[in-house]
């Protein structure tokens, strides 16, 4: 394990997580959540849990982002919350 690599990914995970809940644009939040999933996938792969990383990449970053976008498509893009 290279700690610099770990630190960069971990800080990107935190940044993506905070950005995904604070951004007003729901489509942007969905994309940020996809980026968050992808960073988590990299983190799993670094820790040697390749099966979990694969699941995270296909389910978290792939299909759930599509489902979020499909849901945003049927509502308004901006949130008032």
């Amino acid at each position, binding site marked *: 394990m290279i700690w610099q690599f770990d630190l960069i990914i971990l800080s990107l995970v935190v940044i993506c997580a905070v950005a995904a809940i604070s951004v007003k644009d729901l489509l942007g939040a969905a994309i940020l959540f996809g980026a968050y999933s992808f960073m988590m996938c990299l983190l799993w792969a670094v*820790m040697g849990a*390749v*099966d979990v*990383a*694969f*699941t995270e990449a*296909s*389910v978290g970053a*792939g*299909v759930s982002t*599509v*489902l979020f*976008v*499909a*849901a945003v*498509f*049927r509502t308004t893009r901006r949130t008032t919350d």
Partner: protein
Amino acid sequence: MKTAGVIIVFLFGGLLVYGTLDFPDWGDPDAPASRHVSPRYIEKSLEETSVPNMVTAVLADFRGFDTLFETVVIFSAGLSCFFLLRTKRKAPEARFYRHLPTGIVLRIEKGGRLPEGSVEFERIDSIWVPHDLIIRATCRLLIPFIQLFALYVIAHGHHSPGGGFQGGVIFGAAFILYAVTHDLRDGLHRLGEKITIVLCSLGVFIYAGVGALCLFLESNFLDYAALAPVLGVDPVTARSHGILFVEIGVGIAVMAVMFAIYTNLSSVGKQDEGL
């Protein structure tokens, strides 16, 4: 109210972080899990199931009940999406048709429609009009390879990372990609709603059926070694084959559920016009 929420979040977050301090270190050889549980699987899983990938052996054989009910959870997610969202299809306000040679769009008021099999006219969605030849052609080329990769992931789960869940999701994503790049009706033409629901149930049925078959062959539920006389192989290979059967079941169920959730979500349950 908002400050109270932030305080509660930080309080419980802090408690969770404090709780993890009691955890054994990452990769600690003296942790309870690495002292009793892991060595058992590491030493015996290849010998007992002839599956090189330990994760698959644990997931589908040693912890088969877990995976069975995970599949049931995914099945019920698809079913609840169907029951919550699906509505009766009403005739839309107006239908839009594109004249293919000229690109002129016709708007036909409620009730009217052009013949289905028309070569010159193409039905398009009223809110989002996908018409990009490059994207369509590229995805048409890509989709067979994505599906082939999904089948590889399911079939090769014994030797490499992957298995029913991942392969099923990739297979479902290929159908979703088709529905996104063409339109939802084309996607539903390929994999209809009724077939999707039958496939959802079929996947869970295969998994539970393999378990019940072991029960009929005078063994425990999901003890694949009992399948040996039926398959004509030794018990260890039978466990490997049993894992493959349940992975196929999981793959079918997950694939169908992903597509069912997508179609219901993007068309607000009308299964007509969507993303």
